[in-house]
């Protein structure tokens, strides 16, 4: 059962922000409700007003933008902007996402279950800042930034700055999360996302992307890692990029990746800010981070060679 509330359905972002500003703590932005309504049923949140953002123009759109944040024209790949009210299912099925960021479409296909994907939104997922968010972990490796709108104007924040802690973001009370913008990788990059856990919210997640030398990566003979991106989710208070582990992979060749992957996995595990909880002890999580970083890197390396490993790990999903 839900406690009674007033439902507002603004037609513009300005109207929505004015409502949020005027109602303050009494209001909550509402899109799919897959997180919000749950917490309201439990009585953990008790907003007396819901501000439905689904009718705001642009909030339901997926859009390729040819310009970078500073207005410079990007030559290799357009950025991809996903409106806050776009559902996981729409991301999964979007030809644009499939073409520009295939791994994002693949990860979207594995968020929660089909009912949640049909209703839950990208914006809601990021704004809730659940440490177990698949999208936040993956998006960190795509240099994501979020766009916030308020009566004071618009601002763009790197996703890593937006997510401040578990269930905590940099969003002010009168601000709305309008969209998230990703910077797709080029054809010289191979990637993998692996999550592990027996519950719907994973115990840990690893996103790995390897950029290889040569214009089209390993399939054209590129063998050396010129840049690695590695993000770890679920085990700590927020998903994080692990710069030290990324650095340890730089310059390694695919042929002897095993040693470099082992080193990167140890670095990532040692740096994980893991806590004991229902998903396991901190020690257990660190050990599993090492295991799954190695596996994710192995899958990304296989994909760089044009192979799709048939690897299946118990209680793990490979995207």
């Amino acid at each position, binding site marked *: 059962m839900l*406690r009674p*509330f007033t439902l507002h359905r603004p037609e513009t972002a300005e109207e929505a922000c004015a409502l949020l500003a005027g109602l303050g703590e009494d209001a909550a932005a509402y899109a799919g*409700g*897959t997180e919000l309504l749950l917490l309201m*049923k439990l009585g953990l949140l008790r907003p007396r007003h819901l501000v439905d953002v689904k009718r705001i123009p642009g909030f339901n759109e997926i859009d390729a933008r040819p310009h970078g944040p500073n207005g410079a024209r990007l030559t290799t790949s357009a950025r991809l902007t996903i409106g806050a009210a776009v559902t996981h*299912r729409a991301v999964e099925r979007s030809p644009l996402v499939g073409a520009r960021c295939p791994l994002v479409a693949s990860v979207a296909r594995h968020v929660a279950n*089909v*009912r949640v994907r*049909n*209703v839950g939104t990208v914006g809601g997922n990021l704004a809730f800042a659940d440490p177990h968010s698949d999208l936040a972990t993956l998006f960190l490796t795509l240099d994501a930034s979020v766009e916030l709108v308020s009566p004071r104007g618009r601002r763009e924040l790197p996703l890593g700055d937006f997510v401040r802690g578990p269930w905590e973001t940099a969003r002010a009370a009168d601000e709305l999360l309008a969209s998230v913008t990703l910077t797709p990788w080029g054809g010289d990059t191979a990637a993998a996302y692996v999550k592990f856990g027996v519950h719907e919210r994973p115990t840990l997640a690893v996103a790995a992307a390897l950029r290889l030398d040569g214009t089209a990566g390993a399939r054209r003979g590129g063998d050396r890692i010129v840049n690695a991106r590695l993000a770890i989710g679920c085990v700590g208070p927020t998903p994080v990029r692990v710069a030290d582990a990324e650095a340890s992979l730089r310059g390694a060749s695919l042929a002897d990746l095993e040693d470099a992957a082992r080193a990167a996995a140890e670095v990532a595990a040692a740096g994980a800010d893991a806590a004991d909880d229902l998903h396991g002890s901190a020690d257990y999580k660190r050990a599993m981070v090492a295991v799954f970083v190695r596996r994710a890197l192995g899958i990304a390396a296989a994909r760089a060679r044009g192979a799709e490993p048939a690897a299946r790990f118990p209680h793990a999903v490979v995207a």
Partner: protein
Amino acid sequence: MTIHVTVNGRPRELDVAPHALLLDVIRDALELKGAKRSCDAQVCGACTVLVDGLAVSACTYLAVEADGHSVLTVEGLAEGESLDPLQRAFVDAGAVQCGFCTSGMLMTAKAMLAEQARPSRDDVLHYLRGSLCRCTGYRKIVEAILTAAEAAR
């Protein structure tokens, strides 16, 4: 708020509160008891209904969101005495133990077959993630869905 919803093919005008959940409206106002409240948290699938063909958890879905849309519940699958091919396949395969999850399984499968006419076993397993049978009778449910898909060709 007044909403206009087509439920199992029949247009309805309903007066619902903004905080009314679709599951309560279906079960209490419309007295359609097929969709069940079980986990109440979108993880089990027992309350699955289709809104414009998409599976949703009616337990965590505001009734006002269905305004202007079509809702299909398990009661809308059969035409009179004539079972939907999925229901027929469930009966033939014995894909029912206690029956509590059955309506959700049927509706989830209904949505899947509308999207994919030729699902593989893996497709079915993927689509059924988050549809729980606590009798653990999954094998026959999956068989029944594959049989229904085969029969529809």
